[in-house]
């Protein structure tokens, strides 16, 4: 066997890892679940970005969505926390070693029902975390109850008609001062992957509200969380391509046809113009377009808003270059001669 055939069989990326090195355990979610598709895109994105899995911390809450961190990046540390309380867990953990990146998976129940409080607060703190909400409008593990993002008037078998207005996760993220807000659709894997890459390059919280159909409980054609509805109603703000730092932009477009958003790490997100020339750095425009999307029954996808200037939580705390969790005793226990001074400070 020649060397060439070996390398063809085990293709590796720049950091010498094969795609299999980014895998997790086999999924135990339903066949066709949108969440599985998102897990695959996380694996692809990390592989293509040459991410070292040990540099990622995975987090999740409780629910179908929150099971999925087991299904990707086995070589990353992960913590499956409590229902609705993943953001606090991630907040504390990411102080351990500031060189690590957080990647969280939550669901609509986990983030905007039980977890609305923590969701909102992690946004305002701008924790450097990729925050994926796998949004399917139902509680799957408890057999199909309406979630807070379910459409008003939606009928679900065994649960009647939903009488309440839905919560819009992208909208909540935007008004909650998230510094990166995107929406996507599990049925549009290419966009999901490019958005995950962009999110990993963002120096703050990156919320990805991904409509991820529940094939078992909420996939009827009239549900806005179904594959059929998504395919019919998806309106992409732009065609989005992620270009890693120091790589040349190879995408082919005419002048004025695209915008480039330069990320904190030098990478670029190229947004190729589709219907309108959308500017994701304009917050007022982001709010307006979300309203319009609701009025026109669009599944609006793409990078809705980005603010690259907001300092992230760790920056605010001005920590030592050595990760806190590796500081030796001499740097965390005050020297013995200080104790006398302390006692003198008391009365």
């Amino acid at each position, binding site marked *: 066997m020649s060397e060439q055939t070996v390398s063809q069989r085990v293709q590796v990326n720049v950091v010498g890892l094969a795609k299999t090195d980014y895998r997790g*355990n086999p999924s135990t979610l339903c066949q066709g679940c949108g969440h599985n598709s998102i897990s695959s895109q996380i694996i692809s994105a990390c592989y293509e970005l040459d991410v*070292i*899995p*040990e*540099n990622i*911390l*995975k987090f999740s809450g409780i629910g179908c969505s929150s099971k999925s*961190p*087991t299904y990707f990046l*086995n*070589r*990353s*540390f*992960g*913590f*499956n*926390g*409590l229902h609705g*309380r993943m*953001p*606090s*867990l*991630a*907040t*504390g*953990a*990411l*102080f*351990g*070693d500031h*060189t*690590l990146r957080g990647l969280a998976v939550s669901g609509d129940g986990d983030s905007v029902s039980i977890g609305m*409080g*923590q969701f909102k*607060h992690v946004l305002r703190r701008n924790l450097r975390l990729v925050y994926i909400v796998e949004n399917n409008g139902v509680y799957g593990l408890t057999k199909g109850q309406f979630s807070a993002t379910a459409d008003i008037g939606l009928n679900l078998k065994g649960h009647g008609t939903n009488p309440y207005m839905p919560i819009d996760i992208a909208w909540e993220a935007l008004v909650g001062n998230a510094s990166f807000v995107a929406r996507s659709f599990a049925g549009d894997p290419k966009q999901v992957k490019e958005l995950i890459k962009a999110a990993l390059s963002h120096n703050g919280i990156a919320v990805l509200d991904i409509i991820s159909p529940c094939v078992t409980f909420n996939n009827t054609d009239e549900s806005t969380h179904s594959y059929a509805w998504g395919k019919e109603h998806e309106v992409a703000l732009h065609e989005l391509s992620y270009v890693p730092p120091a790589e040349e932009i190879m995408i082919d477009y005419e002048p004025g046809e695209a915008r480039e958003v330069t990320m904190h790490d030098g990478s670029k997100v190229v947004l190729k113009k589709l219907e309108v020339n959308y500017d994701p750095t304009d917050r007022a425009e982001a709010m307006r377009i979300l309203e319009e999307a609701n009025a026109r029954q669009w599944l609006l996808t793409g990078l809705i808003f980005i603010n690259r200037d907001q300092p992230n939580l760790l920056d605010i*705390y*001005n*920590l*030592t*270059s*050595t*990760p*806190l*969790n*590796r*500081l030796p*005793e*001499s*740097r*965390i*226990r*005050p020297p*013995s001669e*200080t*104790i006398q001074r*302390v*006692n003198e400070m*008391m*009365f």
Partner: protein
Amino acid sequence: MSAVQIQEQEQVLTEQKAVVNDFSITVGTVNGSGSQTSNLTILRSLFRMGIPVSGKNLFPSNIQGLPTWYTIRVNKDGYLARREEQEIMVAMNQATFTQDLKAVISGGAFFYSDDIKLPVIRDDIAVYPMAVKQLVREVNVPAALRDYIANMVYVGVLSQIIGIDLDKIFQALNFHFKGKTKPVDMNFEIVRNSFDWAKANLAKQDPYLVEPMKATEGFIMADGNTAAAIGAIYGGLHFAAWYPITPATSLAESLLEYLPILRKDPLQPSRNTYVVLQAEDELAAIGMSIGAGWAGLRSMTSTSGPGLSLMAEYAGLAYYAEVPVVIWDIQRVGPSTGLPTRTAQGDLTFAHFMGHGDSQHVILLPGSVDECFEFGWKALDLAERLQAPVLVLSDLDLGMNQWMTNPFKYPDTSIDRGKVLWESDIEKMRGEWARYREIDGDGITYRTIPGNRDPNAAYFTRGTGHSEDARYSEDPVVWHEGLERLKRKFETAKKYVPGPVIEKSDGSEIGFIAFGSTDAAIQEARDMLAEKGVQTGYLRVRAIPFSADIEEFIQSYERIYVTEMNRDGQLFQLLVVYFPQLAGKLKSIAYTDGLPLTAKFVYDALASKEDF
């Protein structure tokens, strides 16, 4: 009364034998009127005079307007528990004037602000009207500060009548205002004027006097929350998340005060080696602290009962997923909002079993301010050694009041990070290590920490059933064995937790068991009992799990009175659970009304149970 009668009355009062350095002073004021400065000034000046002294703030849950009391006990023999008798009362609050007047013991002294125009209906006490308004008017003070400064009048008048040294008052003010000349001078001026006014206008009619001693040498004065915070800083604390709640707030605020002073990094002095984060609620505070503990930070949170309730679910997860974290619970009176500014020991059973399913948490129980310091650093060691939550239960009295205490002692052992594997360790243990695999037979497994770059270091942490290698598992055998190992770990904890403080009394039939801030009252009650010929042993529990010496202690007495500040006898309950064979010897003295325990209560309770 006729003039002759008054004269006779005064005669009686002045003929009383002087009572020196043994009485209580209670000051009744309006909450938010700045009386805390005055009260602490009296307390500290007495301490500086070398007289053992304690001060307790009995305050309402209110910012401004409701009645509040401060009670100071002066005792030459060093008994510093709260007393039920009030020898000296200072009444500055019209709303409680009549009640305060009644509270003074016969032969006691009653000071009051003379703008309160209520009848002084008692003739068995010394009465001192104080010209507060007039004295305030005489000093040049901005109008906005007059109400605050008014409380300095009683400091001056009291000092003159009972003999507090004005130099010591000055020192106390200087400490309080951190050496800032302007407020020190302004306050001291009114104290001195009031002192002089009292000298010219009031004749001493009561027997109470203070005289300098040397009994406070080698002691400091501090509160438990400050001590706990500084202790944690010496414990190498990296991370604290918290949410404001009385009476725990001052613990986190002390971290914010002392960390910048004490934790200057030797290598990067302009950077921080710690994080203190005010969370949105206690659910988040514990979540953050557990995340940090998991990521290898020395991590803690501090709260009180209601906050502890909110932390239960995460504490249960940390117990089962084996994540180190320290939780300080500064207990107040529950259930519900209860009496949020009053003290109790009512969280013990809840804290111990906090979580669903089977859980037993390690608990530390500091009984003095210097122990709050010690447990401040020790708790962090224990949490990492045991890879588990460690709860430290203090209370409002210990946490917020000023106590005369031993100075803080520098930790006598190095920081213990427990069984942690970094890259080189993983290499050495290859093939042998799995996150939840027991290797040493003590129930404690080896953990890796996020940031460890070895490709085999990572594991997935979860609250669901997991195998030795941290994989999801619903296997009955795996579940059972995992939980049994946690029980073994709890046994191992006995080796590491602080043992009880035991004072044996050979030949006596009666023993006390207690914990926490009731120590002073129990010690005093034991001396009162000894005077009556009733000798008692005493064991102060300092941790759960209970060690073997607690069992031995119970065995060596006929009757053990488990004495505590709650309704149900929670320590009593736990002792019965862990030593069922000795349950017959255990009796409960449990009482809670929001006030710190008194020796008299303990004495009376025992006397009635023992029938003497």
